[in-house]
């Protein structure tokens, strides 16, 4: 038996360190070739590191949340045969960088493949749950809800969630509710009353008391996935019967949860929950802080009449929707920005404050802020200037989907020159977008709403939309920013102009 050391593979170009996001194995676990050992995160992409060998985990090189240098020891495996520990040690002694990199080429290749496949963890969970032995392979990912989940962070939040003792359910509400209706109906509670079953329920179960149910009822509740402590017992001494289970299921757990909320509505609550800010969340936090600390933002808001733009969009969709796909407002806005940037190239730029150089780009690489399950991501629509409306729409849809499913590559997540952020119907009236450092401008879209507008002396209803745009005041003057936004406004209010070359 030898020791095989796997080093942190170099995943993207020029990245010196990556963050360990999740361990899929623990010391003592046996692993097979290609089995995923850990999730690591570079800049914005999460990559799975598979094992190049069969073996047994001896030691983990770091904790979840730790930032590790590329080439650092990630994990030690015990393997049949000699292993590579000696070779790795030797190369380290000689300090030979090339050898060092050779030590983990296999892991690197596999990591690359994994990144390409980008098998996201959540997709793995359901299939694992279907295997006959529950809680086994899935237990590695917190999504599986295994109490023994590997990562300490997951463990922590789990324990806390478990410790939280739910209130004693509908029972506890009786005190508050009883006042008006008198004791018997209060005892019937939300279940009897709502269902109109007329069954007199037993007295409520005092808080903290164990639910009372026969072994058969307990087993059936487990099989039905019902937590007995939420079920009101109508039997003698508050015994929960099969009938109670049926009724609970008919009403759905939501009714129970609602009753719980009602009963707990005015109860004092002293919970604290510590959520480790790791992985993507930490990246977002760092980026945001960086941007706000370095960039003197100013935000300019303008109102835009999009009645005609919307009319055109609807007609385009009517005529071409079936063949080319439906358009949202976003591709039209992208087009307007692309056209406006021709006159204001200083806004399509990245500012390197250390070198005191603002680089202007002829290409418009449009960052499109997208909300994903794990947090904010900004996939990049490359060469927006070279896309027509439908190509633009298709590319935006593809990127958003890739970001949401975690399949977006590093290239698709970097290199934007200006960013658009839109919350659609949630857009609100005004926002103060945070610039995607080192860019110098971000255009925020607020919601479209019909408002009374004075037009040619008459008050008419028009579809109005605000644009809230932030700029880096170090390199963009207020006047230019205002002119840029006014230019966009002109284009959007007279949409034919969008297509005049």
């Amino acid at each position: 038996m030898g020791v095989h050391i796997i080093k942190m593979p170099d995943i993207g170009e020029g990245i010196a360190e990556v963050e360990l996001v999740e361990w899929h194995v623990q010391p003592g676990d046996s692993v097979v070739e290609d089995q995923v050992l850990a999730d690591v995160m570079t800049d914005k992409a999460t990559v799975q590191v598979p094992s190049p060998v069969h073996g047994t985990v001896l030691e983990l090189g770091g904790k979840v949340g730790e930032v590790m240098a590329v080439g650092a020891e990630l994990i030690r495996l015990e393997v049949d045969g000699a292993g590579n520990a000696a070779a790795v040690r030797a190369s380290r002694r000689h300090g030979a960088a090339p050898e060092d990199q050779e030590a983990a080429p296999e892991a690197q290749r596999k990591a690359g493949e994994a990144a390409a496949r980008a098998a996201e963890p959540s997709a793995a969970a359901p299939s694992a749950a279907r295997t006959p032995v529950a809680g086994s392979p899935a237990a590695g990912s917190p999504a599986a809800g295994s109490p023994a989940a590997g990562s300490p962070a997951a463990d922590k939040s789990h324990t806390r969630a478990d410790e939280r003792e739910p209130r004693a359910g509908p029972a506890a509400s009786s005190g508050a509710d009883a006042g008006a209706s008198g004791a018997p109906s209060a005892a019937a509670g939300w279940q009897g009353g709502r269902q109109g079953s007329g069954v007199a329920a037993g007295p409520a179960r005092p808080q903290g008391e164990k639910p009372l149910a026969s072994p058969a009822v307990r087993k059936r509740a487990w099989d039905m996935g019902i937590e007995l402590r939420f079920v009101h017992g109508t039997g003698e001494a508050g015994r929960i019967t099969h009938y109670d289970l049926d009724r609970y299921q008919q009403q759905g757990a939501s009714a129970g949860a609602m009753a719980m909320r009602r009963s707990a509505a005015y109860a004092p609550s002293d919970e604290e929950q510590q959520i480790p800010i790791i992985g993507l969340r930490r990246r977002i936090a760092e980026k945001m802080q960086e941007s706000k600390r370095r960039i003197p933002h100013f935000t300019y808001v303008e109102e835009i009449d999009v009645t005609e733009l919307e009319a055109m969009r609807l007609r385009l969709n009517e005529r071409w929707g079936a063949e080319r796909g439906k358009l949202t407002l976003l591709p039209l806005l992208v087009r307007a920005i692309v056209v406006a940037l021709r006159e204001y190239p200083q806004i399509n730029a990245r500012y390197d404050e250390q070198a005191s150089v603002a680089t202007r780009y002829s290409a418009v690489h449009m960052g499109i802020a997208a909300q994903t399950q794990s947090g904010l991501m900004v996939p990049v629509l490359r060469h927006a200037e070279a896309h027509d409306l439908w190509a633009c729409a298709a590319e935006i849809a593809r990127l958003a989907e890739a970001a949401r499913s975690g399949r977006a590559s590093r290239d698709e997540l970097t290199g934007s020159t200006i960013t658009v952020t839109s919350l659609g119907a949630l857009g609100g009236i005004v926002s103060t977008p945070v610039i995607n450092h080192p860019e110098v401008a971000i255009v925020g879209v607020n919601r479209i709403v019909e408002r009374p507008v004075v037009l040619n002396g008459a008050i008419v209803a028009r579809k109005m939309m605000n644009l809230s745009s932030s700029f880096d005041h170090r390199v963009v003057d207020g006047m230019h920013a205002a002119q840029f936004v006014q230019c966009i406004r002109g284009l959007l209010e007279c949409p034919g102009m969008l297509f005049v070359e």
Partner: protein
Amino acid sequence: MESTTLLILGGGPGGYVAALRAGQLGIPTVLVETANVGGTCLNIGCIPSKALIHAADEFHKLTRYTQGSPLGISAGSAAIDIHRTVAWMGGIVARLTGGVAGLLKKSGVSVIKGRAQILDGKTIEVEPPAGGSGKRQRISCEHLLLATGSEPVALPSLPFGGRVISSTEALSPAVLPGRLAVIGAGYIGLELGMAYRKLGAQVSVIEAQDRILPAYDADLAKPVAAALKALGMDLHLSCQVLGMNEAGDALRVSGADGKEREMAADQVLVAVGRRPRTSGYGLEGLMLDMDGPAVRIDDQCRTSMRQVWAIGDLTGEPMLAHRAMAQGVVVAEILAGKQRRYTPAAVPAVCFTDPEIAVAGLTPAQAQQAGLDCLSAEFPFAANGRALTMESAHGFVRVVARRDNHLIVGWQAVGQGVSELATAFSQSLEMGARLEDVAGTIHSHPTLGEAVQEAALRALGQSLHI
């Protein structure tokens, strides 16, 4: 390397039941056992001790009849051939362990005989039994279930060997000792001590505390203490055992008065308790969280290591076969994808002294400690017809129930044959029965079980026969 889904260490009641259930559910299962399947319970515990107790009872009855009896029965002289007794016990054990082995085979469980060594949470090495032909093998598994049971605790001043024996040796005596000293007046010491006394040995029981059966409440222990006296056993309470004398034929004991004296003994049975078997097979290497000497588990029998499970005596008190069996089923079903928990309302316990003790749930004192406002009632066997016909009017049945809703929270009984009442006790607790439920159930007449109903009636203030 052979690999399996579930690997079970230990073929005792916990391990073999888990294996049977897992096999039934189609989980590939390997069971590793050093000796015969059946564990302590079948081989050197519950079953042989009950066989010995039965033989002792029969013999004792006959010796009583040599002096005539109120029943009008008299007999000539009574004699026992302990070799044949032990052989008969062996037959029962062989039949049961053979039965378990057959069941395991039928369920498709692969049983490997040998000494297991845990290499890691997923890998076990099995060394074949000494003299065996097999070779060392490694088995890897997805889930490891630890069911290695417990072992008798030795006294530092009185290591096992020579005249000093544990319950294991006491259950297969080659000859009956003339004088037996039993250290520990817990259930194991008293069950065996009484059996040996009935077989004719002079038995002294030495206990460090000031009462027998410290684990049971004093009212329950009283009839047993009276029986010990009636049998002519010597009881030395509040006594410390210092060791054997230099000649090795007597026990040195310091009494309650602090004076040291010697007690001649042909054999010394040390029965001061059992402890989880946690060493000798590489368990330490897993560095599991412990609860004192026991492996810590949650209500799904998970240890602190993922996919390593533990059940039975290894996980601490109560060290009872039926608890291990219930836990074994829970683990097997969880592995089959079912949602299960080990959350019994009560684990019944029985002490096979004469009279027997059976308990389930809370005693009045425990209920009070738990903050419950409880009422309790006893029904004496002196008022039970069946008990009188069995010459066993000693003892009682007691029920403990909540005062507010009459939910039964505990049962205790002491008396001849009350072990069979434990079934009714735990059933009523698991079903969440109230006093009215038991009182309203017809209990057949004439049986000891009527005392159960009468206890419930009495708690309700409606007793008929007292």
